[in-house]
C-alpha cells in the first residue's frame, strides 16, 4: 500500500513569491493535515481538510491557504513568501476520525527554502 506522498521534495523560492505544495493521502483516507516544522519550533499545525472542507486551522496568517480536491489530494499555498517560511512542510492523512482513531500517517515532507 502506497503511503502519503508529497511533491516537490525541495522547493526554493524568493521573498514575495508564491509556493504550492502538493500531497496525496493514503488510499481510503479522507482527512489531510498540513504541518510546518521550522527549526527549533517542532511540529506546528497548519490546516486540516476532511471530505473537501476545512475542519480546523492553526495560528498562521491568511497567506497560508489550501484546498482538498475530490480525490482527497490536497494543496498548500503560501503567498507573499517571507524568509521565516523556510521550513519542512509535512502532510499527513488519516481515516475520518470516527471513534478514537487519531493516528495520522505522515509523508516525507517538502523542504521549502525562501531566499
Amino acid at each position: 500500500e502506497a503511503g502519503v506522498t508529497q511533491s516537490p521534495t525541495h522547493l526554493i523560492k524568493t521573498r514575495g513569491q508564491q509556493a504550492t505544495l502538493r500531497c496525496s493521502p493514503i488510499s481510503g483516507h479522507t482527512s489531510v493535515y498540513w504541518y510546518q516544522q521550522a527549526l527549533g519550533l517542532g511540529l506546528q499545525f497548519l490546516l486540516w481538510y476532511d471530505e473537501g472542507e476545512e475542519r480546523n486551522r492553526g495560528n498562521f496568517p491568511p497567506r497560508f491557504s489550501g484546498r482538498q480536491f475530490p480525490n482527497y489530494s490536497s494543496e498548500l499555498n503560501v503567498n507573499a513568501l517571507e524568509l521565516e517560511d523556510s521550513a519542512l512542510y509535512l502532510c499527513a492523512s488519516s481515516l475520518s476520525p470516527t471513534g478514537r482513531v487519531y493516528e495520522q500517517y505522515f509523508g516525507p515532507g517538502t523542504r521549502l527554502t525562501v531566499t
Partner: protein
Amino acid sequence: DQQVKQNSPSLSVQEGRISILNCDYTNSMFDYFLWYKKYPAEGPTFLISISSIKDKNEDGRFTVFLNKSAKHLSLHIVPSQPGDSAVYFCAASGADRDDKIIFGKGTRLHILP
C-alpha cells in the same frame, strides 16, 4: 502558548537500558495522547497512543504512562536499541471530533553502543 511541552531537547541512553521520554501538557481538555518517532528526512511515524481513561498502554518494548493529575505522560522504551535513535514527538488532542493534534517540540534520543 505551548500546550504540549517536551523539556528535554535531547537524551542519551546506553543500549540495553531503559529510555524514558517525558512530556507535560497544560490543557486539561486533552483527551488523547500520542507519541511519534521521526528519523531524519522522513515524516513522523505513529508509535503508541493512550486515552485519558487509561493510565498505561503497552506495545512490545514501548509503554506510555499517563498521570492526569500531574498532566504528565512518559514513554518508556525497554530495552533500548540502536534503531531507537530518533526524534520523539509527544502529541495531544481533545475529545471533540474537530480538535487538532498539538505536538511538542520533540526530544532527540541517542542510543549509545
